[in-house]
């Protein structure tokens, strides 16, 4: 592996300081500092200085592995991209994968062994460990982990159990699937993983489910979803009944906001329609039409109809959905669960707490988990762990749990580790490091091996050992292929043929006392493990556009009833526990339901994440619950700022022009766009070798933000921090505007990614006094940072407001929480870091265009269609972003520009944008 070598290119801030003295320097000689070039002593294999290298690797989310490709330059990982060969990446990424490079270089990562906070040594630890486990077979020894599906880790745990037979292993995952597991037990008598073949469904009914939301299955689902929305494909009809907005709900053709209790009744009604006899459903009449239509269409589409239940639904509803799907012959595979433990997650967590308080343990190892944060305060885990004589925490950070333990052992980041993992369907892939460990850390497997005395074991050997035993044929060849492809061939599980139990009666949900809390993992920091990642903290929540915190989302009705205005700080009280956060009212959310996100309110996340937002998972008696009743909402005495990157999501009567919506019928009648240009007095643009253009399909876009973080990683876009956000400042080159507008009789929400429009008649250019904003011959509107003097006339005159100004030295001296220095290593060396006082903006990944052009020119050919891919385009799981050359009449973008749903943002200004859009399209009620 190449080692992290100091950046050989000149420190950019020095350069800027030099520039700053340019004027004076003309008078007195400016003595430029000597600049050193440090070559390798020994050049690593295959490395060309300054050229990117790509390694297939695996990153886990909630334990399940997804295969990605890591890009490193001069041995520094700088970017994560999708791995087309991996069934759960399909070449796309999500925000968590993109942000891993940020976590890798996080200066707050734990770098040393600690004993009661003080830095300690291996020897001290092993001595103490020996003490704790001497002369016993593991009696009173507990191991706590999150979900484990990695074959190697499972092998290590087996070995551990082998060495300490009577130890107890507790595994729980904060973002769990207990309801689905229980539902499967009811339906099939065993736990299974059910994977819908979404793309095969013509009609989908989602009962509070969010298959398009973040999670281990998002990328596969999103791609399937998009495959039914491309031009010409038979469009899917999606019905969603849900309490709070989900990305799936936003994508649905027909959505109805209902309380969880009503969703149970809807399930009952649909089941009855399929021939079950579960008593008469109690459907409020505003939902009747929805239910009737959904059932009718499901019936009509037998074999191609699918019903999905959400985690917030009780096990019975999941069971019923399995039964309905069976009746409908739904396209869904039931696979053996990769989760090695039979018990449910919440159950295990409670068991752990009970055993701790019963003082059953003399030693506890918490391996890469943070139960003290995840578990509700009612379990008093911190005290429990503290009461154990020997306790050790293995983790990336000195987090809440590390504080409760005596020992803390620093964990290696995935990008510096060898390991393996499995995807939801069992597809195995290797975790391959892109860099040597930055600090003296070890992987989870190494620690586990080491705890049973194999202290020499290196992760690399452990992984190879695992696979030597279960890969037939020439191992070395398969190994190289596995590393190269990022997947291990034929490791996916085969679907089970299961006998289905007839559904027992569906219990009537008791009408909730007080308001109910609908809780889900945070769309930016997930279950809290990414809370110290500045990119993700500044990545806005899809609907509220909130950053750096979590809001209490309430229905407008409740807001009115309780006299709560947007951004008021409110208290949510439940069982004596209180959550305080700013409130935001969400048109289209069910009355009586409060929406909350886990994952914020970390107590010991690091300089970035500590104290941001409110801790939601601490409340309630039932750990990891998705739904709680009996909440009381009231205005708070405290005041917590609501920080968002978009203050206005209503379109103020400009919907027709800005966020355009069409029904399939309207589209049918619309005649195809001609691509003809409106008249202008200005001359025709000069014809260059290429005419780059982008078409963004707002119909495919599900608002997952992957493009935003991908852009940030690719283009060294700095974070600005909460204070600056409150000032109304942000730096994202690509923003996803969230809009809500009534359409027909329902509230529509949609997403509009807005990069620079690269207008042919760019308004920003003629107003720049120094030619810092100019056009090049390939139609790019380029910003020359080093020429910019910061008049900001360009942004003032930009109708799309896509330009971003460095009010402070965000990427250098004045970086938020001193991130600047730490992230030098992550910076993409092909992109300038922008200094204070200059304007910047999207440039269609100019560095990639330039790389592609040079590659082509060296071979005296032109860049091929699809050869040039922007960072946002590469990341997009739904392929909503199309990029290419308008000079080719046959190119993707040229064709899309002729599509009937094609439109130009603010066309009346005749700025001739090169970035254009496809309308959001919905099925209408009538057509089948």
């Amino acid at each position, binding site marked *: 592996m190449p080692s992290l070598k100091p950046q050989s290119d000149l420190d950019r801030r020095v350069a800027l300081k030099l520039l700053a003295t340019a004027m004076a320097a003309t008078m007195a000689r400016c003595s430029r500092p000597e600049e050193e070039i440090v070559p390798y002593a020994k050049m690593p294999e295959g490395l060309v200085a300054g050229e990117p290298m790509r390694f297939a690797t695996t990153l886990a989310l909630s334990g399940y592995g997804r295969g990605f490709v890591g890009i490193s330059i001069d041995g520094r990982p700088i970017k994560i991209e999708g791995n087309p060969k991996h069934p759960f990446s399909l070449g796309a990424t999500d925000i968590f994968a993109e942000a891993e490079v940020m976590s890798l270089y996080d200066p707050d990562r734990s770098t040393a062994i600690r004993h009661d906070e003080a830095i300690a040594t291996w020897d001290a630890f092993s001595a103490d460990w020996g003490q704790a486990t001497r002369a016993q077979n593991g009696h009173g020894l507990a191991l706590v982990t999150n979900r484990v599906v990695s074959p190697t880790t499972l092998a290590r745990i087996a070995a551990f159990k082998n060495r300490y037979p009577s130890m107890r292993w507790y595994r729980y995952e904060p973002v769990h699937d207990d309801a689905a597991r229980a539902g499967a037990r009811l339906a099939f008598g065993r736990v299974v993983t059910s994977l819908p073949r979404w793309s095969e469904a013509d009609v989908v009914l989602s009962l509070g489910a969010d298959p398009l939301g973040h999670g281990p299955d998002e990328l596969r689902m999103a791609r399937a979803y998009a495959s039914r929305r491309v031009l010409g494909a038979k469009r899917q009809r999606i019905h969603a009944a849900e309490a709070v907005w989900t990305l799936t709900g936003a994508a649905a053709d027909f959505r109805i906001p209902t309380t969880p209790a009503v969703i149970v009744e809807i399930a009952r009604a649909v089941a009855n329609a399929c021939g079950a006899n579960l008593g008469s459903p109690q459907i409020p009449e505003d939902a009747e039409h929805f239910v009737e239509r959904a059932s009718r269409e499901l019936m009509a589409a037998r074999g191609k109809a699918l019903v999905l239940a959400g985690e917030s639904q009780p096990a019975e509803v999941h069971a019923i959905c399995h039964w309905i799907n069976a009746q409908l012959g739904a396209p869904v595979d039931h696979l053996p669960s990769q989760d090695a433990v039979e018990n449910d997650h919440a159950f295990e967590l409670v068991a752990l707490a009970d055993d701790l308080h019963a003082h059953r343990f003399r030693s506890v190892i918490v391996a890469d988990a943070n139960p003290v944060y995840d578990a509700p305060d009612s379990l008093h885990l911190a005290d429990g762990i503290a009461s154990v004589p020997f306790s050790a925490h293995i983790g990336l950070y000195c987090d809440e749990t590390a504080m409760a333990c005596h020992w803390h052992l620093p964990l290696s980041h995935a990008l510096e580790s060898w390991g393996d993992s499995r995807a939801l369907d069992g597809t195995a892939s290797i975790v391959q490091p892109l860099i040597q460990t930055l600090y003296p850390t070890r992987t989870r497997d190494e620690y586990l091996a080491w705890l049973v005395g194999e202290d020499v074991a290196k992760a690399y050997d452990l992984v190879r050992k695992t696979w030597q035993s279960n890969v037939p044929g020439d191992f070395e060849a398969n190994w190289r292929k596995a590393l190269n492809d990022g997947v291990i061939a034929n490791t996916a599980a085969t679907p089970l043929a299961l006998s289905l139990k007839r559904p027992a009666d569906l219990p009537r949900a008791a009408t909730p006392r007080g308001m109910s809390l609908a809780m889900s993992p945070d769309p930016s920091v997930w279950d809290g493990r990414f809370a110290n990642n500045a990119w993700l903290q500044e990545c806005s929540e899809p609907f509220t556009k909130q950053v750096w915190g979590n809001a209490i989302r309430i229905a407008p009705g409740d807001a009115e009833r309780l006299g709560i205005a947007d951004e008021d700080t409110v208290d949510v009280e439940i069982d004596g526990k209180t959550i305080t956060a700013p409130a935001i009212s969400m048109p289209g959310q069910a009355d009586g339901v409060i929406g909350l996100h886990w994952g914020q309110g970390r107590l010991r996340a690091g300089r970035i994440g500590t104290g941001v937002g409110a801790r939601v998972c601490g409340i309630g008696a039932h750990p990891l619950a998705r739904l709680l009743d009996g909440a009381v909402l009231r205005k708070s005495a405290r005041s917590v700022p609501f920080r968002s990157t978009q203050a206005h999501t209503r379109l103020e009567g400009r919907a027709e022009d800005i966020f355009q919506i069409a029904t399939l019928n309207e589209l049918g009648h619309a005649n195809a766009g001609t691509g003809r240009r409106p008249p202008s007095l*200005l001359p025709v643009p000069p014809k260059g070798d290429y005419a780059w253009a982008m078409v963004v399909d707002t119909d495919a876009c599900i608002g997952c933000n992957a493009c935003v973080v991908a852009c940030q990683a690719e283009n060294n876009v700095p974070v600005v921090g909460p204070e600056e956000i409150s000032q109304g400042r942000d730096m994202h080159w690509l923003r996803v505007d969230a809009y809500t507008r009534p359409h027909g009789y329902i509230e529509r929400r949609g997403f509009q990614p807005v990069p620079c429009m690269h207008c042919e008649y760019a308004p920003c*250019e*003629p107003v720049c006094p120094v*030619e810092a904003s100019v*056009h090049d011959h390939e139609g790019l509107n380029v910003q020359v940072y080093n020429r910019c003097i910061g008049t900001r006339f360009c942004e003032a005159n930009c109708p799309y407001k896509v330009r971003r100004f460095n009010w402070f030295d965000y990427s250098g001296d004045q970086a938020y929480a001193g991130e600047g220095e730490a992230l030098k290593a992550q910076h993409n060396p092909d992109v300038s870091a922008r200094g204070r006082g200059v304007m910047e903006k999207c440039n269609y990944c100019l560095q990639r265009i330039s790389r592609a052009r040079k590659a082509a020119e060296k071979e005296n050919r032109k860049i091929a269609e699809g050869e040039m891919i922007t960072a946002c385009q590469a990341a997009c799981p739904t392929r909503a972003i199309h990029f290419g050359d308008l000079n080719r009449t046959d190119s993707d973008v040229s064709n899309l520009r002729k599509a009937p749903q094609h439109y130009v943002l603010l066309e009346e200004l005749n700025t001739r944008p090169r970035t254009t859009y496809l309308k959001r399209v919905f099925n209408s009620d009538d057509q089948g």
Partner: protein
Amino acid sequence: MSEYLLAEFETAQDALTAARRAQENGRAAEDVLSHMPIEGIAEYLARPRRPAIGWVMFVAGALGAAAGYFMQWYSAVVDYPVVSGNRPLNSWPAFLLVPYETTILSAAVVGFLAWMAMNGLPKPHHPLFFAKITERAVQDRYLLVFPRDTALAAWIAENLKPRRLHEVRE
């Protein structure tokens, strides 16, 4: 080494009449020193001339305009053409504003220089300052300036009736 006679008058009117009479008698004054401009007195002086400062400023302005436009045309069309908002390289309507200003600027600056040159200023030292009375000339008096000459002095005292007659010598 020049020496003068200064005929002092109380009012502009007296000065004007005196200057005219002197000129009619072929003894036109060299110059008049006054604390304020006196309409039309210049034509009664010896060797009257029409100052051409207006023409100087006009020419300067015209040149300024040409230079202003040329600078823009040369830089934007010839030296380094850059595509800016796809405007024509020679965007003449936009290029008219700078020349407008350069016209006025050069006319004013050149005019100022001409103003000094034609007045022979700066001249902090001037023989006339040897006369104490010149300090009143810039405050409230009127002085007709003649070459020093005894005969002339007598004539002046006789015909022009100055309030006083001063001699200027080293």
